[in-house]
């Protein structure tokens, strides 16, 4: 008898190394792939694909029900652009398996509740819409859907809740009606009429102070920039007038009507909207961006009107496609261009409008700005015969309306257009824009062209820009970005500090040390003092001037050269810029040397903050100083300020993260010790272990508090300076009897708005201080209005 080991016996008939976990996950992948890909381009019709898939899934239900449920719930939430494809699929499954239908509905409700709990409101809307379309697929009974909507609309009766909360429930209700309005109205017209009239009264009484802050254009012509709920309401009213006839949405379930109408429906369980909590953060209100109408493409298919429900559905779907595929630019472009209904709607116009809507969205675009530039380039590649023309037309229209365009949006337009041009050899019909040459240079159009040319230069070089624009545009061309060294010319030798500058130049070229530099600088007299300090290290503007001018001039060749210089002589900088006045003066000198090269100023300021030669508050004060008044409305100044604020914010977050991580380490240490308690009774050793970590936490806590206080101070300084500047202007205008609304004023007040919008999350923390200290009732109403609009955003 052969001696077989026990293990051999038990293994007999079983493949030895099968890893149990990989097989099911392969099946899950296959299921996910099948489900996700249905509706894509295929040789068979959508109907037969759906039928086939329903059959496959039905067969897999006994073994993979929970996975199928999870996948379907996820596509409902994350692929809203294919909503009706998946509701049809669920409808077919429900017709074959009533219990599955019920379980799916339950899972969706659970998912909806979960989304609302964690503030995922945008995805929750997709779920609500999906549920409502399930009414069309005979999965959910219409009356129960109406009941859910009744609960949604009744949120508007809640007291002491933010308006944005009521807004969301209203939006979830209204935005589902294009899909299910007809069916709900047919089954429950009285209830629907009641809901619609409640909607109307809510929309009438809700406040809209926030709207001006979110509009891309302040003008109502040619297209009013409507608040999103107002626009949607107009669209639904029109839909109702059209007897809920909606012809744009693809409804695959219509082909299966005979099967689906046999299916048993489920009732939605009563849905109580979760109550408002302190942690609830609702989506911000929006303004609908419109730039095209049917007159813009006279040759092609008619563009649905601004109050048509088709317009709403198309825009929603295109936005969803971008949201799904933003990381994959080629896929995104392809998906956008294969949006169904291509020959019935001017798709290129819709796409361009939706992309600009996102790019110009206030406060911020949903995705990083550069994505939109590259996406548009991909679209041009795929549709070379048509899309570039639409884009050119759009650019022209945006240019024409610059006079009323929000400053932040103009910034983004400048960045987009210059970057776009750099991909197309800067080819543009500049002469078409010669109208701007006769205008005051501070007006929006010439300002825009100047800033575009400056950005184009940054992406190429000065002579290139001179070559690409007509000679008449030279007044708008950027300066040659050369350094201005005040001690450079022999003719300047009478300037104080000239000889020291020469000395310094030679020393630095001979690789002098910091100490040698200090001793050379000792000879610089201090124009602020009668007698020198023994060390001579108090604020001496001339010393700073001589040193910084000379060093920057020597290192002018490139960014790297300048950065090396800052690093090598860091000690000298730190000493000279020790005081607040010192920091300010360093910045002033940097500007004097490099005022022709804004890009260099920006990178130097960045480096000086990061190496702590200057601090953020110094940069803020410098930007508002009288020396910079001439450049105050230039784009680069605001890029510097916002970059400075962002650095401050990132710094606070970084230390906070360090603190949280250290706290977590301590907690883990405690846990480990608690679980080892039986073995180790030595309390003293555990204290010793904690010691360094606890010390670290204390130190980090202090660091966090000090950083947060610096951050708050930065914002207060900025707001204070804005208020001073604007008040000065308003007083001057009122006493002089001149019009307040100069281009400078418009620019300035919008820059103030921009601060609020760009950093709204952080600024929310300071509301009390701002209200009591700065934006008090005594303030001029023009300035106060900006603050009030901001408060209204999350009210």
């Amino acid at each position, binding site marked *: 008898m052969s001696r077989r080991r026990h293990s051999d016996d038990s293994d007999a008939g079983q493949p030895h190394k099968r890893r149990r976990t990989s097989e099911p996950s392969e099946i899950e992948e296959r299921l996910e*792939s099948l489900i996700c890909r249905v509706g894509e381009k295929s040789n068979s019709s959508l109907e037969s694909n759906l039928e086939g898939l329903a059959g496959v899934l039905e067969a897999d239900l006994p073994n993979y029900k929970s996975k199928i449920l999870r996948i379907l719930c996820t596509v409902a939430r994350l692929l809203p652009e294919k909503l009706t494809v998946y509701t049809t699929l669920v409808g077919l499954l429900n017709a074959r398996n009533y219990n599955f239908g019920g379980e799916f509905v339950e899972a969706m409700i659970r998912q909806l509740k979960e989304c609302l709990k964690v*503030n995922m409101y945008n995805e929750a809307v997709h779920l609500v819409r999906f549920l409502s379309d399930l009414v069309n697929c005979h999965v959910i009974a219409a009356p129960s859907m109406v009941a859910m909507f009744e609960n949604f609309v009744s949120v508007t009766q809640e007291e002491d809740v933010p308006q944005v909360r009521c807004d969301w429930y209203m939006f979830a209700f209204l935005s589902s009606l294009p899909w299910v309005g007809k069916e709900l109205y047919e089954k429950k017209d009285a209830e629907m009429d009641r809901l619609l009239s409640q909607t109307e009264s809510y929309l009438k009484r809700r406040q809209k102070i926030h709207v001006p802050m979110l509009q891309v254009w302040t003008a109502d012509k040619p297209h009013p920039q409507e608040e999103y709920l107002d626009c949607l309401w107009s669209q639904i009213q029109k839909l109702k007038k059209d007897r809920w006839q909606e012809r744009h949405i693809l409804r695959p379930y219509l082909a299966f009507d005979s099967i689906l109408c046999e299916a048993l429906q489920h009732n939605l369980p009563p849905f109580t909207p979760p109550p408002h909590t302190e942690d609830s953060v609702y989506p911000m209100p929006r303004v609908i961006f419109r730039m095209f109408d049917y007159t813009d493409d006279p040759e092609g298919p008619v563009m649905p009107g601004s109050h048509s429900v088709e317009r709403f559905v198309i825009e929603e779907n295109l936005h969803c496609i971008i949201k799904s595929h933003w990381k994959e630019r080629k896929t995104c472009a392809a998906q956008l261009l294969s949006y169904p209904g291509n020959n019935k709607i001017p798709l290129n116009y819709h796409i361009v409008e939706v992309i600009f809507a996102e790019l110009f969205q206030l406060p911020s675009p949903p995705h990083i700005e550069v994505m939109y530039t*590259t996406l548009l*380039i991909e679209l041009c590649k795929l549709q070379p015969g048509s899309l570039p023309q639409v884009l050119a037309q759009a650019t022209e229209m945006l240019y024409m309306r610059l006079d009323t365009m929000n400053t932040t949006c103009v910034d983004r337009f400048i960045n987009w257009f210059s970057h776009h041009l750099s991909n197309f050899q800067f080819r543009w019909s500049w002469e078409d824009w010669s109208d701007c040459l006769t205008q005051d240079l501070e007006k929006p159009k010439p300002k825009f062209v100047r800033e575009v040319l400056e950005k184009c230069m940054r992406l*190429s070089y000065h002579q290139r820009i001179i070559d690409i624009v007509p000679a008449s545009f030279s007044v708008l061309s950027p300066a040659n970005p050369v350094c201005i060294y005040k001690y450079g010319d022999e003719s300047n030798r009478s300037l104080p500090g000239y000889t020291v500058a020469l000395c310094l130049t030679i020393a630095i070229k001979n690789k002098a040390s910091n100490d040698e530099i200090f001793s050379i600088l000792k000879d610089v007299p201090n124009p602020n003092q009668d007698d020198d300090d023994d060390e001579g290290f108090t604020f001496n503007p001339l010393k700073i001037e001589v040193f910084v001018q000379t060093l920057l001039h020597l290192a002018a060749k490139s960014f*790297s050269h300048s950065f090396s210089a800052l690093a090598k002589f860091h000690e000298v900088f730190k000493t000279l810029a020790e005081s607040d006045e010192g920091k300010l003066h360093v910045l002033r000198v940097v500007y004097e040397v490099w005022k022709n090269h804004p890009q260099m100023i920006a990178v130097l300021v960045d480096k000086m903050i990061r190496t702590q030669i200057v601090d953020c508050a110094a940069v803020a004060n410098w930007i508002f100083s009288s020396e910079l008044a001439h450049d105050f409305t230039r784009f680069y100044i605001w890029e510097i300020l916002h970059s400075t604020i962002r650095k401050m914010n990132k710094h606070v977050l970084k230390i906070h993260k360090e603190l949280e991580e250290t706290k977590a380490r301590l907690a883990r240490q405690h846990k480990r010790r608690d679980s080892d308690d039986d073995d180790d009774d030595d309390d003293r050793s555990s204290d010793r272990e904690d010691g360094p970590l606890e010390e670290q936490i204390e130190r980090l806590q202090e660091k966090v508090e000090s950083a947060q206080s610096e951050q708050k101070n930065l914002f207060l300084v900025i707001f204070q300076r804005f208020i001073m500047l604007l008040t000065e202007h308003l007083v001057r205008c009122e006493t002089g009897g001149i019009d307040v609304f100069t281009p400078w004023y418009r620019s300035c007040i919008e820059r103030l708005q921009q601060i609020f919008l760009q950093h709204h*999350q952080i600024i929310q923390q300071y509301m009390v201080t701002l209200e009591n200290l700065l934006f008090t009732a005594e303030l001029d109403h023009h300035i106060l209005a900006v603050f009030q609009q901001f408060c209204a955003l999350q009210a």
Partner: protein
Amino acid sequence: CPPGKVLRDGPAAMSAGGTLSILRSDSYADLSQYRDQHFRGTRYDQERLLRKSCTLYVGNLSFYTTEEQIHELFGKSGDIKKVIMGLDKVKKTACGFCFVEYYARGDAENAMRYINGTRLDDRIIRTDWDAGFKEGRQYGRGRSGGQVRDEYRQDYDAGRGGYGKTVQCQ
């Protein structure tokens, strides 16, 4: 307290159902097939570094493209820590490549997604993950001092010294 209570990814997303693999696709930010043959360490080490790197290699630059231009373009995806120009080993002049290091990996990823394959100085530039700059890596590895690709290419490229080096010597 940290600003912003909106929860996006992470645990919240998982509890509310996770995501789909087609939506996870991020081909532009994935590692390419290229591996630096001069890298000191194992393939595994190199890939580990590539996956957490904040540094990009940028190729097909014109010899005339400046650090300033590179800074402007790549600054569109985030704050740049450093730009290191690639140099001809002999002439010590720009030879058509550079390294761009970001402070945050996410910014480098966005450069891979949106700047790679677009134009700088009218040329389509190419970006790829780099395991990290080390002294000496700023020099071309071609026999004549420039990049290897400029040794053997047959075409005429005005922005990269004209014909390839081998062609020039014929």
